[in-house]
């Protein structure tokens, strides 16, 4: 069934007809077992290019494992992963930015003794010449200045430009979340994997977050794992639903909302 066609056309993608061009991210028949437990069971899903795709499911459904497979933290027992339309034999976390993919973590993952600017530029500075940066060469200094400029621009885009020189601990949690987002945007990703971005933030901040995520498309592709259903239904073009390591439903937000299997998984109603 895995009939595919070119990057620009609509068609069958990993077994499902999608009204979108070739997917930016996909899993094909991926299975993961950890300690004898099946975490993902032949999961196939995809995120269409230039759209916001949601990945939802009850606790333990395997959502974060999907992200861990996509970002190389977990190697699947079987199946394949495609990023940017390219099937990858092995994904390594530090290569994600090279593939134009950024991932946020459930927490903020900021380093408390580094300033916001240092946190945001951490990877970008080291990436641009592992040893040149150590020697403080003129071109490395110029590169570092460019990286800092880009970081300040990213922080300003997210409305936290004035916080660049403060420590993360001095900032409210929603601002820390934005700092983590700014760090992810430093590689100018074409695909962003957002792992529970709304965790721990207020309803007002959530509305801002929704607008922000929508502002990234169609230039970027977003795959969103989130528990806040209002946010998911509001911002997503397409949703995949996992339960106990299997895909139980997929479709537009309206289709998913009415799907009996989804109602059963979330509310315990018979499918």
């Amino acid at each position, binding site marked *: 069934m895995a009939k595919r066609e070119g990057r620009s056309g609509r068609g069958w993608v990993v077994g499902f007809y999608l009204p979108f061009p070739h997917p930016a991210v996909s899993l094909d028949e991926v299975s993961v077992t950890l300690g004898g437990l099946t975490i993902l069971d032949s999961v196939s899903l995809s995120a269409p290019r230039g759209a916001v795709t949601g990945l939802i499911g009850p606790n333990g459904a395997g959502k974060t494992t999907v992200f861990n497979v996509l970002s190389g933290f977990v190697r699947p027992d079987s199946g394949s992963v495609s990023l940017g339309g390219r099937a990858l034999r092995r994904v*390594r976390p530090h290569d994600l930015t090279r593939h134009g993919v950024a991932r946020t973590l459930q927490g903020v993952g900021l380093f408390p003794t580094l300033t916001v600017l240092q946190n945001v530029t951490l990877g970008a500075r080291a990436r641009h010449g592992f*040893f040149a940066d150590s020697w403080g060469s003129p071109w490395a200094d110029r590169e570092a200045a460019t990286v800092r400029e880009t970081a300040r621009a990213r922080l300003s885009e997210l409305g936290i430009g004035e916080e660049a020189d403060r420590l993360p601990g001095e900032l409210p949690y929603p601002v820390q979340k934005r700092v983590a987002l700014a760090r992810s945007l430093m590689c100018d990703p074409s695909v962003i994997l957002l792992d529970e971005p709304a965790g721990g933030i207020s309803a007002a901040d959530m509305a801002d977050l929704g607008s922000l995520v929508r502002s990234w498309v169609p230039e970027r592709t977003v795959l969103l794992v989130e528990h806040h259903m209002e946010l998911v239904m509001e911002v997503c073009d397409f949703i995949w639903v996992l339960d106990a390591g299997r895909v139980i439903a997929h479709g537009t937000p309206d289709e998913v909302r009415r799907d009996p299997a989804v109602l059963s998984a979330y509310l315990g109603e018979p499918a």
Partner: protein
Amino acid sequence: MNPLEVLVGYLLGGVANGAVIALIALALVLTWRSSRVINFAQVGQAMFTSFIALSVQQATGLWWLAAGAVLGLVVYLLTLRPIRRSDSSGAIIATFGILIALQAGAAMIWGGDLVAFPQPFPASGIETGDRVWPISIYDLVVLGVAAALVLGLSLFLTRTGIGLAMRASAFQPEVVRLSGIDVRKTLALGWALAGIVGSLAGVLIAPISSLSPNSFDLLLILAFTAAVIGGLDSLVGAVMFGLGTGLLLSVVTGYSSAEDAPLAALILLALNLLLKPGGVFARPGARDV
């Protein structure tokens, strides 16, 4: 001499030893900061590379520090990188194994006897007028090398992107990897830097002590003591308490005997563990970068 002059004399006599203890402590802190592993093979590496430096010196007539330092990297690449794949406690235990292997290997290659290491600078006390100070030019060179290394490493770790990434890798490697940095490289760099610092320490201490496969064992205990008292994460703490340990040993040796010196260091460690177990320079957040 009046009592104050005697005390100053003992203190000056401990400067070189203190600087070398500080360097080994610094090497222990570097591996700890980059990977959360204490490398107990550090003095084995220092000893082994000192023997190599001695062989190079005997073969070529050159007093070539770099030979020993570069070989510290080889020890890392051949032994410690594969071990790092296991959890940190396994890696720590494995470093003991490497220490024993290095000592046995050195005994097989160079023999188990004490050998003299040539001195590149005069080790006699500096003379000013008719007075001879209990500190030599060589002691000052050792102190200078230690100070330059501390300054250089501090700048590297705090001012460069690689240095920041190296520190960050020890705490949240997943974040660092998602930022596009190969954590294996930052780990390798941390261990390699530590290897260089430890090797330099070995080559610096060998001329003012002697060299045998087990001659640096006490150095490991003293440097570990200094690193722990300093807080394990702190470069400044390692250097300050490394130097302090050297001075304390010299004073105890002077007023009592050389046999009592290690005991004094262990009492200091015990007091530290009782009163401030996290270390004097430990910051509140153990996972701070």
